[in-house]
């Protein structure tokens, strides 16, 4: 479905490239998590795949779609959801217009049929009162609802590839959990190929078959989620796993003096710092 070869992206200025020499493959029907922190290049990679890089970006290497007969059209063949649904939804249009428009433009549906499809999609996204919701505007919905509406719009033209760039990072954990379950169900029932950008190692493990770990614009390692997280080859992946906060991590009042393991950014080694005693 997707073949990225030696991809490099540099924006203006003399700084280091946003992405350097990244190669990876994503087979049809598979789910890939692109895992990284700020500055890792994970969003640049998603934008490059969608053909949405800023005009001034200098690009080397290739992004190809071997499974498609022609170059993919964004919105028709590739659906996109961003972290901030404000970036995907137009505030002055009703959500019905926005979702239906995707099917009208890309699939040649009539407006009536497109609106009926939009209502079905909203219902599938668990938006209560889907028919009435079509006539409302984005600001009338909560952040979690807006993100599900953006997902409905991304899927309205029945794309083969869904790119989701941190779709749950602006949501609280409960709403995030609902969104993750919804996304997981939709990808399975529609047989979608998924590229899921995240900073959360646990979300990557829950939603993806494969993971690509990025740091500083470079690919640290990639492979099946089970193998990479059981037997990480790169020190950075090992450090992320070793320092992940989870429900078993207790160091505060209940374990006085204990500290959380930290990552040394120089070499990704993991250390538990000594507690600092009062000075002066």
């Amino acid at each position: 479905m997707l073949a990225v070869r030696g991809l490099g992206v540099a924006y203006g200025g003399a700084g280091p490239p946003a992405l350097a020499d990244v190669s990876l493959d994503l087979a049809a029907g598979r789910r890939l998590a692109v895992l990284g922190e700020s500055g890792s290049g994970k969003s640049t990679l998603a934008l490059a795949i969608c053909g949405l890089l800023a005009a001034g970006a200098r690009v080397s290497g290739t992004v190809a779609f071997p499974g498609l007969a022609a170059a993919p059209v964004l919105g028709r063949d590739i659906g996109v959801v961003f972290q901030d649904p404000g970036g995907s939804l137009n505030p002055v249009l009703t959500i019905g217009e926005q979702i239906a428009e995707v099917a009208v433009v890309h699939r040649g549906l009539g407006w009536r049929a497109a609106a009926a499809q939009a209502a079905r999609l909203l219902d599938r996204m668990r938006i209560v009162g889907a028919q009435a919701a079509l006539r409302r505007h984005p600001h009338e919905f909560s952040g979690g609802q807006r993100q599900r509406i953006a997902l409905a719009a991304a899927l309205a033209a029945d794309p083969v590839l869904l790119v989701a760039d941190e779709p749950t990072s602006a949501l609280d954990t409960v709403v995030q959990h609902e969104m993750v379950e919804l996304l997981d169900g939709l990808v399975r029932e529609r047989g979608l190929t998924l590229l899921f950008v995240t900073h959360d190692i646990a979300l990557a493990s829950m939603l993806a078959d494969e993971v690509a770990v990025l740091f500083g614009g470079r690919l640290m390692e990639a492979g099946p989620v089970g193998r990479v997280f059981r037997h990480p080859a790169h020190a950075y992946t090992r450090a992320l796993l070793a320092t992940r906060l989870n429900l078993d991590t207790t160091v505060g009042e209940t374990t006085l003096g204990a500290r959380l393991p930290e990552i040394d950014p120089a070499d990704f080694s993991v250390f538990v710092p000594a507690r600092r005693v009062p000075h002066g």
Partner: protein
Amino acid sequence: MVEPALLEVAGLHKRFRRAGQDVTALDGVDLRIAPGTTLALAGASGSGKSTLARCVVRLVAPDAGTIRFAGVDLLGLGEAALRAMRPQLQMVFQDPSTAFNPRATVARILADPLRVHGLAPRAQWRARALALLDMVRLPGTLIDRQPHELSGGQRQRVAIARALATGPRLVVLDEPVSALDVSVRAAVLNLLLDLQEQTGVAYLLIAHDLAVVRAVAGTVAVMEAGRIVEHGAVDEVFARPQATATRGLLAAVPRLVLREG
């Protein structure tokens, strides 16, 4: 024996008018924090935890109820008395990039509380700012930088240093690590633990992520629809959650799934 409370909130109510409708943000909230301890307020968006935190630092005035801080009725204080109390009661916000005047230098950001509260003569501001940077483990070379020249983790350390500049007895931490990269969260949480042991400051920690609560808080209060629906030692509450809201929050924590292959 029950330790005397540093903060004691009773019967707090707050309603807002939003889009022509009355919304109950707080519906009778009671809580207490002992000196030098951490109480976490957990809950989903809209549960009222941020409104409660804003009432405690008096950014929002409640409709009814009492807030006693260090034995003083906080809501009964006039302007001047409240200003005199401010140094003891500080807040750190979620997004360090919006919490500062973008054109101020770190030196100015850290000197501001000293200037506003008259805690140190001008001649000492720079030395105090350098000492605060050291306290939050930032190099003194950052002192003349502006917020946009710092990383997210560095900015949040500056925000913590600013909150501690006045020697507070309580700091409200509103989602202090949720905007930070996962690899720097542990370091900021460790810093908060160190500072608590060094200064005896108490924390009211607002968090929707129970893994963060678990890591640093001794006690947790779970909020839903403006009420505290469960309250107790973190170990107890997480091991035997009673309220539906607590179970929902626990179930929502992402878990590492290690599949074969």
